Every structure is written in C-alpha cells, then in structure tokens.
C-alpha cells in the first residue's frame, strides 16, 4: 500500500502541486488501521513522513544535467528509471518557451559535431533546429602581430560543417522538450540542495537484537537529499550537474585543483549587414576576441581581457564599444597578416600535394559590427578540475567536474561528452544488474572521461599561457605555429578532428 501511496505522491509532484499539502492528506489515510496492519512485515516505517525514492537525482537542470536525462530517456535499458531533477529555476517544470522574435541572448555555446551526433541520436537536435542556430563551415584564427593566420574549412575533413552555434536557452529548451516528449519519468524539484547524507549501513554492528524496522537500514542503498524548501528525497545515485560552484561537489568532499586566470570575458551580441558564416578568432595582447555566427545576421562576441579593461568596456557607451570591437577585429593592435607572409608558403610547398582547400585561401577581414544587439555581460575566467569525479553514490559531470577557458568553445561539449559516457555506463550497469551507485561502476565513467578532459584542459591552458606573452622571438614562434597549422595538412586535419570531438585525445599522426 505504501508503494501505491508513494507513486501517487510522485505523480502529483510532477504536476507541481504542493507536496506538503498532499503529504499531510496521505498521512491521514495511511495511519488508518485497516490500511497498515501493525503486524505487516514492512520495510518502510508506519509513516510520519513519506520520502519519495528515485533511481537517479540530477542536481542541476542546466544544459548538461538535462542532456543526461535526455540520453537516459533514449536508451531502452535506462528509460524505465525514475529521475528527480533539482534546480531552483521554476520554469523547468512548465517548459521554456522561445519566440522567434526574441532578441538574441548573449549566452551562446558552440556545439561540436560529436556533441551534435549525441544529441541527434537522443532525438533532441531537431528541437534546436526549430529555433535560431548557425552552422559554420569556416574558421579563421590569427593574432595581432600580423605574422601568420590559419583558415580551417570543413571540407578539409570532408564534413559539412565545423560546428554549430546556438544560444544556451535554445539548447536548454530543446533538451527539456525532448525529455518531456518522451515517456521518461522525471520529477522536477524547484529548490536548492542543502544537504546530502549517505545512508551507510554497518553490518557488523547489527546482530540478532537489531531494532525492528529501522527506517535508515531500509534505505541503506540510497543517499538522502534535503532541499531548501524542506522536502527530502532518497536517490540511489546523485549526479552533480550544478555548474562551476557545485554544491554536490562541496557536500561530497571532492577536492579541486585549479587557478583563476587574471582575465574576464565580456560577451554580447552584435548585428551585421549580412549573414556571417565563419567563426573568427583573433589573439590580442590581453586575450583573444572571438566572433561566432548565430544566424539571422547576428554574431556573438566573446572577448577576453584583463578585469579592469572589462569593467571599463562594460560601462562605456554602445558606440564606443562597437568601435572598440571593430578595431579589435580589424586594424587595431597590429597589422593584417599578408597572405603569404615570411615566404613560409614556399617552405611547405612540398606538403602541398596533400593540400587542404583552406591553405590556399586568402586572409579575410571579419564583417563589421553595426549594432549592439544585447547587453554586455562579464564573467571571470578560471580553470578548475575536480580531483576525482566519482565516489559512493555521487558522480560529477559538466562544469561541476571541470571548468575551462572559453577560447576554444569546448566547455559544454566536454559536458555533453560526460553525460553521454555516464549514460552508457549506467546502461551497462543496469544490464548486468549492478547497483548504479556502486563506486566501481562510476569509476569506469571517470576512467573514460578524465584523460580526455584533462588533455583538453591542458592544451587550452597552454594556449592561454602561450598567448599572454608579448615577446619578439616568442611571437615569431607563435607565427610559425600558425603557419604550420595552416599549411601542414595532416596537422590541420588532426586539429580539426580533435576540436570537432571526433578524437578524444589529440594523438597526432
């Protein structure tokens, strides 16, 4: 009978009716003697409070948390699991609606082809395509010294596109719609996680005179989560998808390594006179500026700079800001690279037999921004990595496990990769009848993702440090690197494959 009551409660929660109201109602029903006979051998106590139990509790219903729910919903072995999603955003329960006329949001993400294929398999990508998004086929990277540039084209690796840029809210709502449209059981809890206790059992101390029907031992296979609105839930596995300042990570006691970059990023949306189809990134003395196509003549700017500059640039007028942006992308700080600078084109001509299409392209000036289409937002940048991703009944995915520099647009893609890998590991665990909170199972996920994540972070950190030094010979080395990346075709193909997410580790050649 208790199980029926439990199901009713969770169904009602899904319809966002206040739990406490129903809890007290049901308590009255349950304590009536004919429903709960005192001699019945029941694991759950004759109730003072019914705490619902879920297979998985995803703390954090952002892009990565929802992508995990989506992947679990799409696999036959896992779609019968019951999932609770804990996120203080109340809109999740009702669904996020996006109108076409909405101004472009400055928070965007670049989705790599690998992530796109995960989302396509899960059936979520079609929702993204219904809203504003932009595939891009070309990319140009250069720096302020004017010594070199590199152009990448999707045709170099025989693909249709290098990636797709979409607003975070578009991605988020696509994943939410995908989960809601499937018959996957999810219950949204619009509050915050306050505490988490692992129900451990000490078998050795429990002998023949064990106190009968102790509730904690019945829940020995779960963690108890307490939420800020006073409710509690039990879950066999707690997934921390709650971002860089993860509460789950803090409660579970995972240590992190990392440092703050003394840089902030300004993001905003700008408009052009015509559509932009290429991704542009220019490395300036204080940090790179990136211009990413968003669709509908809009582009997103991610400009990394020192904290003082970022505060300045946030407060100046729109016109002055636009001037700064155009100058940063164009003639400011240094000359344009010429198309065959330093005669390096000839140096690599022996490799031209396998030349990539883009090696022959000339340097292009990025399109001018004519209007600022959104507010300017500033974020501090840091690198942080959790020393381990899994422990008993707890696992971290996405930014909770790792935060990186935005300079290669990889952040959320690592998160999608984590969610995909974890969903596969959970499916394997279910297939073999394991307890999904078992730490050995979760370690398999960690062993798969940690090397890939750490490698990416190390490479990006290297780039970030390499580009923060303005020193003659070093600049020349960087230029040589640019030209190498541009003209040495196998290297270029490796770079594109790695950045597209096709290879997890950049094993060149």
């Amino acid at each position, binding site marked *: 009978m208790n199980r029926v009551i439990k199901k009713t409660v969770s169904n009602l929660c899904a319809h966002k009716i206040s739990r406490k109201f129903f809890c007290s109602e049901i308590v009255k029903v349950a304590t009536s003697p004919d429903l709960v006979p005192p001699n019945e051998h029941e694991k759950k106590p004759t109730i003072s409070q019914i705490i619902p139990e879920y297979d998985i509790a995803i703390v954090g219903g952002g892009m990565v948390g929802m992508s995990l729910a989506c992947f679990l919903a799409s696999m036959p072995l896992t779609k019968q699991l019951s999932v609770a999603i804990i996120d203080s955003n109340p809109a999740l329960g009702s669904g996020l609606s996006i109108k076409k006329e909405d101004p472009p949001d400055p928070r965007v993400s670049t989705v790599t082809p690998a992530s796109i294929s995960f989302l396509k398999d899960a059936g979520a990508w079609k929702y993204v395509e219904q809203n504003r998004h932009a595939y891009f086929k070309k990319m140009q990277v250069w720096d302020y010294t004017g010594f070199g540039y590199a152009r990448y084209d999707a045709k170099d690796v025989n693909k249709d596109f290098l990636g797709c840029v979409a607003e975070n809210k578009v991605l988020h709502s696509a994943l939410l719609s995908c989960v809601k449209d499937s018959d996957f059981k999810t219950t949204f809890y619009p509050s915050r996680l306050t505490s988490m206790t692992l129900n451990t*059992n000490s*078998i050795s101390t429990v002998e023949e005179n064990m106190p009968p029907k102790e509730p904690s031992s*019945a*829940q020995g296979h779960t963690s108890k989560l307490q939420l800020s609105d006073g409710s509690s839930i039990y879950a066999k596995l707690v997934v921390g998808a709650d971002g860089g300042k993860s509460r789950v990570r803090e409660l579970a006691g995972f240590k992190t390594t990392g440092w703050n970059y003394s840089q902030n990023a300004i993001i905003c949306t700008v408009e052009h006179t015509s559509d932009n189809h290429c991704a542009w990134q220019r490395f300036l003395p204080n940090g790179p500026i990136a211009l990413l196509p968003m669709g509908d003549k809009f582009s997103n700017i991610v400009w990394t700079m020192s904290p003082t500059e970022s505060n300045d640039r946030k407060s100046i007028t729109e016109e002055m800001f636009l001037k700064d942006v155009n100058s940063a992308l164009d003639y400011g700080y240094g000359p344009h690279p010429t198309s065959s600078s330093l005669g390096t084109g000839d140096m690599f001509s022996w490799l031209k037999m396998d030349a990539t299409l883009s090696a022959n392209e000339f340097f292009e000036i990025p399109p001018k921004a004519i209007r600022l289409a959104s507010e300017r937002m500033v974020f501090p940048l840091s690198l942080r990595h959790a020393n381990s991703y899994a422990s008993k009944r707890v696992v971290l995915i996405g930014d909770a496990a790792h935060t990186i520099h935005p300079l290669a647009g990889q952040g959320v893609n690592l998160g999608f990769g984590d969610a995909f890998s974890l969903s596969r590991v959970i499916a394997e665990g279910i297939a*073999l*009848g394991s307890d999904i909170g078992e730490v050995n199972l979760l370690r398999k996920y960690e062993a798969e993702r940690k090397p890939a994540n750490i490698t990416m972070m190390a490479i990006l950190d290297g780039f970030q440090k390499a580009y923060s030094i303005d020193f003659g010979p070093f600049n020349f080395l960087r230029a040589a690197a640019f030209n190498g990346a541009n003209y040495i075709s196998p290297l270029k193909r490796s770079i594109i494959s790695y950045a597209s997410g096709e290879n997890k580790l950049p094993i060149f050649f």
Partner: protein
Amino acid sequence: MKLFNHLRNLNSITTHHHRILRNRFHPLFNNIKFFSDSSSLPQQQTTTQAKQQPLHSSLNRNELAKFASIAETWWDSEGPFKPLHVMNPTRLAFIRSALCRHFKKDPYSAKPLEGLKIADVGCGGGILSEPLARMGATVTGIDAVEKNINIARLHAELDPTTSTIEFCCTTAEKLVEEGRQFDAVMALEVIEHVAEPAEFCKSLSALTVPDGATVISTINRSMRAYATAIVAAEYILRWLPMGTHEWSKFLTPEELVLILQRAGINVEEMAGFAYNPVTGRWSLSDDISVNFIAMGTKTNKTE
C-alpha cells in the same frame, strides 16, 4: 610430483603460513584476499566431514573462523574481496547473454530474467545473487558458512529489489533431498573445492528442471593456470591464501563437459576470462586456459 605433495601438505599447515604471510603482503593489498571459492572451502569440508573425521576437524574450525572473521568485508569493494567484485561484471555478462539466448528472453530488457527461478550454489555474501535478482530473477542463495548467509541477508535487505532473495545455510545435496528444482543453477568457483565433482554435478543436475540451465565456472588444470592462479595469485600477488586451490583438483574443460554429460547436462556455451594487468579489468574471451565458465542445459530424459 614433489610440488603437488608440497601443495597438499600446505593445506594442513596453512594456518601457520598465514601468520607469517601477514607481514609480507603485496603493497596494494593490506589483507588476505579471497575469491568466492574460499567460501565454498568449508562447504566441501562439511560435506566430506561425514567421511573424513578428526583429521580435518581442527582445520575446519580454523578455516571457518578465518572466513567468519573477514565476512564483514564481503561487501567492501576495496577490501579483500576486491578481485571478486572486479570479476563479477564479466561473469554476469556471460550469464546474462547465455540465459537470454537459452530462455529466449529480450536482451535489451532491463529485467531479462523475470520469471526464472535461479539457485546460486556457494553464494558467499551474495555477490552474484543480488545482480541476478536485479535482473528480475527469483533467486535462492545457498552457502555452508552461516556467517556468509547472515551477511548476505543483511546486505540484500537494504535494497527492495534484492530483499526478496531467499538465503539458506545448506548444501546442494540437502536441497536435492528437499526436492527443490530451479530453472537455472549457478555454481561459480565451487567445483574445484568439492571432494567429488561427479557427485556434485549430479546434485546440480537434480536441482535443475528439464531443459533448464546449469552454469559452472572454475579454473582449468593447465600449466598456465598453475602459473597464474596458483603461483602468481597465491604466492606472488597474494590475492589468495596459499593452499586455497589444489592444482590437481582443477578440471579441464573436457573433463567438466564429460562429467556434466554423465549427469545429464549438455554443455552448450563456454567462455574464458582474461585478466588485463594494465587496466586491472577482466574480459570475456575465447581463452579457456585459466578461468573458464560453461553453460549447459539439462536433457529431457529422466534418470
């Protein structure tokens, strides 16, 4: 030949060795390691106790006490039973695919063994019984060590899905006497400790319904198995106490097939377990030269 006698003698003086060994363990492990077969050691002892009396009685008490003392660590996946926990998913993978094929169940279902009655002979702490129950089966776990059964019961009660497992402190022979029958009978890492494998197989066969499945896993009696399962596992890596396994009691796959056939079971599938020391993981392979697992079906003919 000398080595075999040496090993046999070791069995009787194992207790002394354990005290010496305690200081010389492999740095990675800090306690005695046991495979699941160790729990079956006393089972063999108790079944033979009726035949061989006082010679083994002191050993039995010591062995049982040893297992009883570490029984709490059954479910500590970092503890002495760690190698077994690591090997478990691989055994389950074989069992799942073999049983799904035999009973024509949907391999993509989350509970493919629903509706099947399974017996786990020599279940120890229930490491195999619990996943089988989660896969939907109705499981009965039996073991001769009372403490193991207690631990198994307590641990299984923590999860509603596994709390339905029936654990009994008994032997296969006694179950046969009670007339119990099961759709599938598992005896993993047991037969190498039994005094009379042929009789044991007859008991397993009697417990299986006609056209049911019997799954047995053990170690091959090959030179390679001697080198890895005894020399490496017992003497060098110290995964098992010395004398846990007697090489002469291992069965080759051909012998196992033969005694199963005589017991009325036709072996249909067989696989080996390979250990990769670099990744520390086991995987299913065609290599049956060390650990192997076999699934057979009971023929319909009556005894």
